């Protein structure tokens, strides 16, 4: 009796001991799971912190306020007052005259040259445009807000290490002193960077903007939606409502699923070989980009639309068919309207993916340097994600913050599109 009791006890002990171990393992496993989630969260936070911290300053730009005397002798040197003359005026000298008034300490040529470089090379265009708009300004002293050179801009935003040796940076000690002097006089202002949103690409960071890329991306997305949504929805209707289950349908299905997983760069090769080389479409044009993105989005929308059609209960179809509607009438009048919110949601998600896609666009030549804002779908154009790629490659430091700013704008658009999709889903989705 005693014997059995003691062995019983040892078994219980053994089990208790192993139970402790097992519970320990259970806790560890749980911690692994939680930490994997934490890693993802930490990454996401680092990611946003890094992008925002490099990019937020790009939404601000530094300008200099100068009273420029629009000397009619400089503007109309021949005395003739024709409009064409205005394109050939040395506006830089006008600006420099007024800058010299603010900086009387400039002594020799070298110092004057350095002072000239404080202003952006785009400053003269601003004056030119204003005069062309209003010719009566000639002869008056007008106050202008002019852009500063990107290196000065970087210095004022605190990116330049003034302790480092002068040779290792692009802004000289003398220029820094001049800028500080101007700053003390209250001539340098920080404004919201409208240039970023109203101009196209430029070689100068302070003049570069994303409007061209935005317009190009918008054109491509419109083409993508117009082409891929109706076609993909019809294909989904065919596969879900009409196709009989046979080899042919199986083949189609495998085909579509594979297309959805083909690397995007392959679609770029298709665009290059077929649309550009074979059909002779223009390079870097939104029409080609739109066609390529439509082909890419097509399978994605089909898969989403099929899921939406599947979720419509068969009783709807049975009721319509029972009342004498034809198969097409049942589908188009009853099933599709009910599935439409789901289809739209899926296609917006697909479009958001297309908006962020850059590899196929690079293949069809959208990496070209395009300054002009495109006005038609056959003109060369940039695209927002490709603009990010181009700027990230640029050596000037000013483009690094521009890249982050463009990324932020891109992310804002993606968030907007996805929120629209979620809103549509919540508003119109019917729980059966």
């Amino acid at each position, binding site marked *: 009796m005693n014997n059995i009791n003691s062995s019983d006890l040892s078994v219980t002990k053994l089990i208790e001991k192993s139970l402790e171990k097992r519970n320990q393992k259970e806790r560890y496993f749980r911690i692994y799971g*939680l930490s994997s989630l934490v890693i993802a969260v930490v990454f996401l936070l680092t990611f946003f912190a890094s992008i925002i911290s490099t990019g937020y300053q790009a939404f601000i730009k530094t300008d200099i306020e100068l009273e420029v005397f629009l000397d009619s002798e400089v503007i109309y040197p021949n005395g003739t007052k024709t409009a064409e003359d205005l394109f050939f005026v040395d506006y830089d000298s006008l600006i420099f005259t007024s800058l010299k008034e603010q900086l009387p300490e400039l002594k020799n040529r070298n110092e004057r040259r350095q002072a000239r470089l404080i202003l952006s090379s785009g400053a003269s265009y601003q004056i030119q445009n204003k005069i062309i708009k209003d010719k009566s300004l000639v002869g008056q002293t007008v106050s202008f807000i002019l852009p500063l050179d990107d290196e000065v801009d970087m210095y004022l935003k605190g990116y330049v290490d003034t302790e480092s040796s002068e040779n290792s940076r692009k802004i000289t000690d003398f220029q820094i002193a001049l800028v500080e002097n101007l700053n003390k006089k209250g001539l340098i202002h920080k404004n919201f960077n409208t240039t970023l949103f109203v101009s196209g690409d430029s070689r100068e960071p302070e003049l570069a903007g994303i409007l061209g890329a935005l317009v190009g991306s918008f054109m491509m997305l419109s083409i993508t939606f117009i082409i891929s949504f109706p076609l993909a929805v019809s294909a989904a209707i065919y596969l879900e409502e009409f196709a009989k289950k046979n080899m042919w349908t199986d083949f189609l299905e495998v085909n579509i699923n*594979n297309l959805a997983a083909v690397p995007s760069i392959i679609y770029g090769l298709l665009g290059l070989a077929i649309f550009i080389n074979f059909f002779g479409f223009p390079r870097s044009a939104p029409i080609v980009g739109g066609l390529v993105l439509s082909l890419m989005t097509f399978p994605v929308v089909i898969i989403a639309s099929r899921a939406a059609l599947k979720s419509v209960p068969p009783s709807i179809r049975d009721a319509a068919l029972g009342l004498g509607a034809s198969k097409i009438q049942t589908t188009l009048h009853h099933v599709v309207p009910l599935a439409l919110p789901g289809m739209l949601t899926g296609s917006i998600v697909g479009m958001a993916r297309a908006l962020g896609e850059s590899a196929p666009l690079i293949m069809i030549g959208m990496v070209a340097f395009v300054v002009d804002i495109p006005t038609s779908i056959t003109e060369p154009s940039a695209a927002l994600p490709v603009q990010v790629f181009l700027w990230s490659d640029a050596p000037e430091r000013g483009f690094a913050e521009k890249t982050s700013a463009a990324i932020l704008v891109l992310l804002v658009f993606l968030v907007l599109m996805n929120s629209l999709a979620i809103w549509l889903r919540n508003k119109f989705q019917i729980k059966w």
Partner: protein
Amino acid sequence: MYWGIKKMMSIIALSFLLITFLNFRAGRSKALKIRENTTIHSLPEYYGYYTAFWFLIPVTLIGISWLFFSESLITSFVLSNLQKEIVNFNEIQTLNFINGFKNLSEGRNITGEISLLLKEAASLYSYFSTVSNTLLIFACLSIGLFGFYISINKVSSVFQARNAIEKYINYFFLASTCIAILATAGILFSVVFEAIRFFGLVDLDDFLFGLKWSPQMAIREDQVGSSGAFGAIPLFVGTILISIIALLVAVPIGLMNAIYLSEYSPSNVRAYAKPMLEILAGIPTVVYGFFAAITVAPFLRGLGEFVGLSISSESALGVGLVMGIMIIPLVSSLSDDVISAVPQSMRDGSLGLGATKSETIKKVILPAALPGIVGGVLLAASRAIGETMIVVMAAGLSAKLTINPLDAVTTVTVQIVTLLVGDQEFDSPKTLAAFALGLTLFVFTLVLNYFALRIVKKYREQYE
């Protein structure tokens, strides 16, 4: 002037739509008139649709095919008219010439001086464009109106318009499905033809098994390395190295994420974690690439200096890490699907026998879900192999045959991009090599995807 043409085109397009509407009215009113005396088969609208359809569809078909073929046709007309003058142009000169006269006739600025020949070509080009535009309008109008004439004559009391329309709609559905096949065929044609031309210049064996990749062809024949080497093994090794690093990051984290979210997490954690993973999945790859190049690579290099290792600033490790983070959501959502497809009865059975939750997961759920998880991992691998932007922005350019993750390697996609961006020499093995790489990439990912999708599908059917 160019703007004027565009305006005219939109006016013409609008008037065609107006004619379509009028045709609809005509068909419908004829049906209504017939209905006054006798019965008709379908609702009057269907007769309207029928007549409108027979106008609009031929017009659209002609318009679309014109859009695709007119440009190359007009160009070849211009070139054949000027055959004598350009007989000794080489391919690049011809292409420059074509671009030149197109830009000139459209009033864009062109660089370089404008020769007389170019001017003549430009005027020929705009002449042919006008002719083709006029022809297009007349062709569309006459064929469309002919279609309308035939169809309105068919409208009668015995004609079954609805059935006809439904048949057409059915055809349209079928045709849109076939676009999927067209796309696949397009991909195959675009890469296969150029790849075949490439393999005419470079041996297939040299390409698949060569150990040296240096596609830069020298300009002079006698220069060192003038032949260029097209051995793709270094690219394959680089691609696989980066993909393996990415999978080593993504699979454990993604899988544990899925397990934690589906088996352990309280519902409020799940409510926050799911959208977070969706955000991660929605970030464009170009942004990941920027992050890899600007933040991760310098961090790793600094870390390496601190520890005393030399880590290249384009190291496979950094690229693989970021790519791994990119595919975490993919692995996580696919595993989540398969884990929740495991029947609850299996969990209950295991828990009922006294297993702890983690034992149930490790010994019952994961083995049951394994085929699905393997399918998901294969899909993730295909995604990693085909990923372009991250590697283009953060990986190296020079093809080095190494499996050291701290070294810079290059990948198939990086090489495709570098070979095709910038000025292309047509027909040079350098350009064609990009298509051969594209073909390899396509075939490889196709096989991976096919098996992955089959495995996942089989697995789903098992528990349904």
